[in-house]
């Protein structure tokens, strides 16, 4: 690996100053499971690594009935599924953090890192989009909030400016009658990049879908928010017919490429299958039987 300098700020201020000073030469290190591999293979050449794990705001994991979940950008997967509250309220998020890498990777990898890496295949992102998560982004100049579906701009690229840091994610409290799920398809049962993935969230009231959100992984240059799939659900009676229409909408929206993980045709098929299956789980989690 090329030579790097290492900084470990203890406060958010210190952290933001480091990014202000080094700009695009700096890169945040949380779990390092993407960054260190990219540096070793020469895909990233940043000269300064800023270890953000000692910054309290990036390590926060807190639920509040009104504000929802605050998920620090550097919180590793194992802490998330280690929280009973998060397991109970956000099973759709738990789906993702318990499938990123294997046990060892989950000891390091963070949801924030997964997002900042901005891979089209990022497992956490479709679930975050479905759950209406928003990004708290800070720089020495101030803060802003960006919905997760607007965060990624291309493979490996995001809206994050050179001196900005993703501090945390905010997930609104789950509405009454809601359920969410993330499913991905991989050839093995662990340790793979998603060939395709579907993150969904539904809210059910009086036997009808009050809300529905669907986002896909690995079928576009960025994680793909499929508004049409949500629209196919909203107002419809809960049943397999609505799920099939939403799944068809997901398939229609996908813009996959053919590569070594699968052909475009295969991926489109997976979008339909995974969206339907994820919706079935989500409906079940919302407490409704599909029978």
């Amino acid at each position, binding site marked *: 690996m090329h030579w790097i300098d290492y900084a470990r700020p203890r406060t958010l201020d210190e952290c933001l100053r480091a990014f202000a000073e080094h700009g695009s030469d700096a890169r945040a290190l949380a779990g390092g499971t993407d960054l260190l591999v990219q540096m070793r293979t020469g895909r990233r050449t940043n000269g300064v690594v800023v270890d953000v794990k000692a910054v309290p705001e990036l390590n926060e994991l807190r639920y509040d009935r009104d504000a929802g979940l605050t998920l620090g950008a550097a919180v590793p997967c194992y802490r998330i599924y280690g929280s009973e509250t998060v397991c109970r309220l956000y099973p759709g998020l738990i789906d993702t953090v318990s499938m990123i890498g294997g046990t060892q990777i989950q000891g390091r990898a963070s949801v924030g890192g997964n997002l900042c890496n901005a891979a089209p295949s990022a497992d956490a992102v479709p679930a975050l989009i479905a759950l209406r998560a928003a990004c708290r982004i800070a720089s020495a100049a101030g803060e802003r909030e960006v919905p997760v579906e607007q965060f990624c701009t291309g493979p490996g690229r995001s809206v994050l400016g050179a001196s900005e840091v993703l501090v945390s994610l905010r997930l609104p409290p789950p509405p009454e009658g809601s359920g969410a799920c993330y499913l991905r398809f991989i050839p*093995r049962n*662990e340790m*793979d990049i998603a*060939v395709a993935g579907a993150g969904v969230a539904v809210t059910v009231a009086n036997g009808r879908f009050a809300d529905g959100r669907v986002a896909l992984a690995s079928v576009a240059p960025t994680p793909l928010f499929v508004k049409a799939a949500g629209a196919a659900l909203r107002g419809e009676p809960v049943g397999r017919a609505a799920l099939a229409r939403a799944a068809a909408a997901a398939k229609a929206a996908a813009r996959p490429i053919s590569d070594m993980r699968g052909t475009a045709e295969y991926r489109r098929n997976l979008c339909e299958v995974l969206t339907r299956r994820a919706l079935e789980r989500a409906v079940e989690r919302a407490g409704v039987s599909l029978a």
Partner: protein
Amino acid sequence: MSTFTVDPARAAAPRRESSGNGGPGVGGYEPNMVLASATFDVVGTRPVRHDGADKVTGRALYGADVHLSGTLHGAILRSPHAHARIQSVDTSRAEGMDGVFAVVTAADLPPAEDKLVDVGEGETKLAYVHGNILARDKVLYQGHAVAAVAASSPHAALEAARAIDVEYELLPSSMTAPDAMREEAELLHADLFKQEFGEKTDQPSNVAEHFAWRLGDVEAGFAASDAVVERVFDTATVHQGYIEPHNVTALWNHDGRLHIWCSTQGAFVVRDVTAKILEIPVSSVKVTPMEIGGGFGGKIPVYMEPVAALLSRKTGRPVKIVMSREEVFLSTGPTAGSHVRVKVGASADGRIRAMEATLAYEAGAYPGSFVTPGGMCVFAAYDCPNLSVECFDVVVNKPSCAAYRAPGAPQAAFAAEQVIDEVAARVGMDPVDFRLRNSAREGTRRVDGPKFRRIGCEEVLRAVRDHPHYRAPLGGPNRGRGVAVGFWFNVGLESTCTLNVNANGTVHLVEGSTDIGGTRTSIAMQAAEVLGIPAEDILPEVVDTDSVGFTSVTGGSRTTFATGWAAHDAAQKIVSEMKARASKLWSLEPDQVRHSKGVYSANGRSAGFRELAGQCSRTGGPVSATATVKPRGVGGSFAAAIADVAVDPETGKVDVLRFTAVQDVGKAVHPSYVEGQMQGGSVQGIGWSLNEEYCMGADGTMKNSTLLDYRMPTSLDLPMIDTCIVEVANPGHPFGVRGVGEANIVPPLAAIANAVHDATGVRMRRLPMSPPAVWSEIARA
């Protein structure tokens, strides 16, 4: 001795074994059953392995763990292109960098002489080995070594290697055998002339060799058949996938002696090949084989040893090079991708009348694809009078193939065993009954000429038929079961073993076979059996090439067979000597002393081995014996697999639900490690079947050179792997050993394909049977 306490009784306890003549299924289901043919005191038991404590505590020293004082670190610059002419190599920028001590290129190697070199399990042209170590004029595959650097740290070496400037002129590349066999395909080697049926031609070609075997009259056989099935199959390039990357430390000392520490399946091969490449006497090279983190055939070739040696000579310091995982994929032994046509005909009574195959295997950059053993094995499980097999060894722009567990045979069986299933169905027979009716047996002639001696093909097939797994309900939709059978020859080659008796009745065993899977113990057990002492009283050591007689590679399923045989013979010499010592004590003639189970007796007097060992210095001094062997009595091994799968029709994903491996091993010396070989080989076969492949881009570069994207099975992808050890004693070995390392990887590919067919009705004729491939076949059907 280790200070750790382990209870050997506990190690032996967990499994009950079925007795000699009870068939499988008798007395209930055992996940690991042994159909034993003979019983011994030590052979057939399950002692804790001698190197175990070192390996569970992290103390065992592997090649990458070698740290000599003053070590420099090497890195190798490799070709980014699949096929290109090297226009120029400029090392000046690298040489000027901080911490850089030396750079070498092919110009530093002596030119290759036109001669053959033994590379472990056979001979090849020295020029090919030479060209693979450092490319001279052309690079023939992505990852081909071009230059190397020695520097003060691994990071500095890597940075410097990246600073070597190479200009390439790109050439068209060929990635598969059919591709490289096209008239217009770019030639890899201007001086490679096709061998046609053993005759050298003057036709430069990417086909290194074309040959055929014929037996009987296949045309007449097909004419007499009621069911004839002909199919074409393709398999992708796959890698052995050992977890430990290749590594070497070389010290070219100031006395002219070269000492190499490395991870290899054959220290003597490394010694001999390195000496030939560097044109130095073999006597000035010493190779210390460190513990080896897996090989499966892939750690027989010599890659970096001569390079590290050159760097050491230039710098006067030890130089260590450790490959990255990417280098392992790009630059070391995959096994051949294949293109195989098989045609089989049978009459309505279920007799196979004719079998015909054409096999074209990808050798990689240099000749030697293992198509020959593939062709010899393709129909080896069948007794058929009319056979025809044609083979092509084809060079392509991929890394030069290395052996991989029964090299060449799995690809052939993938094709043949699917066609056999189709023919069985056409004649309305159960696939196992059909195989049994046509099974090879003692006296069956193989297509390449030899007649089988005592073999266990029928016994293996009967064990499959009678196994509870074969009749168990599948228990769900989209599920299927498949079986297949396969053959591997096993080899003998050469081994040496020395036994030194200690005064306390223990025995040091010195051998030269690197221990990849517990062979220290399986070899020691054979000496213990002869001496009539516990396995724990033998203390085996694998030593360097200066300290033991010549020993061939750990490969070809030969180590327990041949080095074990040397241990057996050395132990017999010890027994003779101990008889002589006892006769001295008792003032008798040596032939008056009898030996049984470690007790020496004559005329009412007796003494145990330990007692006599304690008297050695009074009866003539140390007792020690060496034996060398080059055994002829090699016994081939048949293996079969029963696989249950579930196929998700919406995604094409295949899950293996249950798997049973059956193998005739002759005699299982240490049943736990025999089961381990069968389980490991089966799972490599499962990986090969389902998801492993070199994904090559249009430019001939590999797209998945990581363990993330080269998908070897994880623990979560597998069920327990049940085993059924069949013991049909090999009459050519003192304990009946055949060998167990390889035949088990032959049947899984076809067994899983047959199971997928049973579950879905589609025939997968291309590997891997990855989800997209299975899905598109289902969608097309």
